[in-house]
């Protein structure tokens, strides 16, 4: 039941992605990626992270430029508010991952997008991180994303797009599934 694809342009090169999928199916070793970030403490709760290189397709790779993320805490925590809080960055990472996915899936399914916007909200009970109540988890007790999407598609098709994007999203997976994290210390 394959329908002929309408020509759409969401600015995603799906042919390239599909070719990459094909190539990596044949040489799965190339699909082993290492993503990296570096972080320097600045002062107070202010820190600066940079993203520059990663490993993939069997060799070291470099971004076109170094990306910098400032993280701090707001003044209600007596911080200086030099950047978003790390959990806000996580929320931003989740919506940007989902949004990129929506565009890619739409392109592949022949759906023309006109606008995609999202608001994301994560609830957190600070009694966890402040050590007031050990039963309360540190992380979000729930995250809610609301998408407003204008596209040449039925409501069902748009729903399916967003669902598929969640299914394929790396950040969605990172947030919904446990991951083993190892933190080592080196005294310098």
């Amino acid at each position, binding site marked *: 039941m394959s329908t002929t694809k309408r020509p759409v342009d969401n600015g995603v090169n799906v042919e390239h992605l599909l070719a990459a999928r094909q190539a990596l199916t044949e040489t799965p070793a190339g699909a082993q990626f290492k993503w990296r970030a570096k972080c320097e403490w600045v002062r107070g709760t202010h820190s600066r992270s940079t993203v520059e290189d990663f490993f993939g397709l069997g060799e070291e790779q470099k971004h076109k430029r170094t990306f910098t993320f400032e993280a701090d805490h707001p003044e209600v925590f007596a911080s200086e508010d030099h950047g978003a809080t790390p959990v806000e960055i996580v929320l931003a990472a989740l919506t940007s991952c989902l949004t990129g996915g929506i565009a890619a899936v739409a392109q592949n399914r022949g759906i023309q997008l006109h606008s995609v916007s999202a608001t994301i909200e994560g609830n957190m009970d600070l009694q966890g991180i402040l050590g007031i109540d050990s039963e309360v988890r540190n992380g979000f007790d729930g995250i809610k994303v609301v998408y407003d999407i204008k596209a040449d598609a039925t409501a069902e098709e748009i*729903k399916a797009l967003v*669902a598929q994007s969640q299914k394929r999203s790396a950040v969605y997976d990172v*947030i919904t599934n*446990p991951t083993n994290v190892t933190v080592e210390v080196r005294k310098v």
Partner: protein
Amino acid sequence: MRVTTVIIGAGHAGLAMSQCLRTRSIDHVILERGEVAHSWKHERWESLRLLTPNWLSRLPGYRYEGDDPDGYMTMPETIGFIERYAAHISAPVRSRTEVTSVRAKSDGYRVTTPAGEWECRTVVLATGACNKAHVPPVAAALPPGIDSVTSQDYRNPAQIQPGGVLVVGASASGTQIAEELQHSGHPVTIAVGEHIRAPRIYRGRDIKWWMDAAGVLDDAYDEIDDLNRARHVPSLQLAGSTERRTVDLNHLDDLGVRIVGRLVGVADSKAQFSGSLRNQCELSDLKMNRLLDRIDEWAEAQGLNGSIDPPHRFESTRCVNDPPLTLDLRKGEVRTVIWATGYRPDYSWLDVPVLDRKGRIRHDGGVAEAPGMYVIGLPFLRRRKSSLIDGAGPDAQDLTEHLVKSLDGRPVATS
């Protein structure tokens, strides 16, 4: 011993192949490690009924002819049905003859069993798609004191020690076992990953009637978008029962089964469930509705509207609000974990390099990469219905055509 074709496995697929070879006068033998219908006799739970209605049990030269075409066969009835088929077609079955090796030779294959060797020009692997229950690696992390049972070992509720059960997997096997255990008094939690919801009855008819009539079961392997994906979709959430009930997550929720996300890990004796349950349910509802849309379009085109129940949609899967993300396995709430996480074929006896790095056989619609080797009975082998009883006939027919051509006018190798 020499024979043109060796069929390995006397399930319905091997038998269907045998019948098609017979009509083309290809001499052959079926080697079976146990007896006819072995897997139905030994690898299914007791209360299981076919989820396909009786009229859909059609095999080459044979079909269900009882007085309950809309019913669903019990295991003894299914075994009887397949045994009668074997007798009806006088299938040349060698029981208790387990194949321990298949090796290529210059003009065919050497098939080894404890009862001797067969040399053949062509070989058909009909050993089944469900030989081994698949258990995910997280099983190794279960704390001591928790019983671990697969859907293949599961027989009945009495076999399960008293107390709570965690059923992992919510496709046809997991949902049915969860329902049965909950009814028998075991408090059940079901961990739900990807699954495909389907109503038993839609617009007054069995969903399989619609799928058959609208051509969904006949979708061809060389005409669908993503074959690899189609070959790995889980089974429809369906069950056979006398009251033709729908066994979906809403039904399990009504019974009091606790529904949680996919089991993703066990750490510090705590089971961890994914927070993706809502999306899994949404995807499943969307897929179900797409199937119903296709059915409605077909019904409309056939002019059935008006003569049957009007199109309608089902309540969304509702049991997704704030499911727990962890479950302490030391607190006694769970005594048994049931792995209903799918099945895999077993090709450990196959000494021909036709398996990919994941142990799956490389084939094009059942024509294996090794010359003269065929496989039948795998999911979406040639059609969506390939792994169903009803799918074996047309697949066997197609493969027989190919096999006869490949023999190239030199069919019989008797001596």
